């Protein structure tokens, strides 16, 4: 029973798509609409770049020169505290103790 419930929750999360979180120049926001969980990295980068350049991401000021070439795409499966797929694009974070 519990397994069936978990499978149903997982399927619902999959059907709902992934939320896309974007960090650009110290600003952060989500794409207004969810995307397919299986969208490719190239598709996501193109979509995100266009959205930031045109000012379509609430919380991020439009930047016609936005470029995510050197950014990292993370994909997070749903968890108990975050019951949806999350895709995040962010700057590299190599430092901790400079």
């Amino acid at each position, binding site marked *: 029973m519990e397994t069936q419930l978990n499978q149903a929750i997982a399927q619902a999360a999959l059907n709902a798509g992934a939320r896309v979180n974007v*960090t650009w120049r*110290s600003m952060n926001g989500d794409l207004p609409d969810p995307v397919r969980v299986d969208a490719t990295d190239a598709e996501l980068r193109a979509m995100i770049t266009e959205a930031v350049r045109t000012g379509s991401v609430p919380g991020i000021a439009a930047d016609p020169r936005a470029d995510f070439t050197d950014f*990292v795409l993370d994909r997070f499966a749903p*968890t108990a505290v975050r019951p949806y797929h999350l895709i995040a694009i962010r700057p590299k974070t*190599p*430092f*901790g*103790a*400079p």
Partner: protein
Amino acid sequence: MKRVVIVGVGALGSHVAMFLRNIDAKLFAIDDDRVEQRNVTSQFHGKSGVGKLKVQALQQALDFFFRLRIDVSPNRLRDDNAEQLLGGASLVIDCVDNGATRRVIQSYVRRANIPCLHGALAADGSFGRAIWDEQFIVDDESNPGAATCENGEFLPFIAITAAQLALAANVYLKSGVRNGFQISPTRTIVV
């Protein structure tokens, strides 16, 4: 008693130690670096610590301010001493500044099945992460040797990231729940 190991006590690690001063666990700090004048603006190291080993300066500061005794090791973490330094830890918190040492930590904690929280900052102080090892991928520098968030301008954001790391560690030590965070100056999200 639980043992929490902090690897790297510079910008993030020194503040994480300070924020974890009330936990019911013994802190153990590892770092082979010394405090430089430029570190004083962004790290929990005072001017009196300049020239000292970072672990020694931190040990003395925590004792002076809070009467907190921590254990320290002034060694660089390597594959051949990882067992000696990290073995038996209840939690490892990675606050180092290079991909090579992060990989040493990741390799050992995965082999030894030790929970590990990684702290990481973008070079320009625009983004931070407090991520559990199962979700963590090591980022290397795009331009090795590039300047990092060394000047005091980034101190508040460094402290926010360190506080989120300490919060994640605190929650884990109390309840076993592993919450990770991605942090920007305008928003923190749970991952």
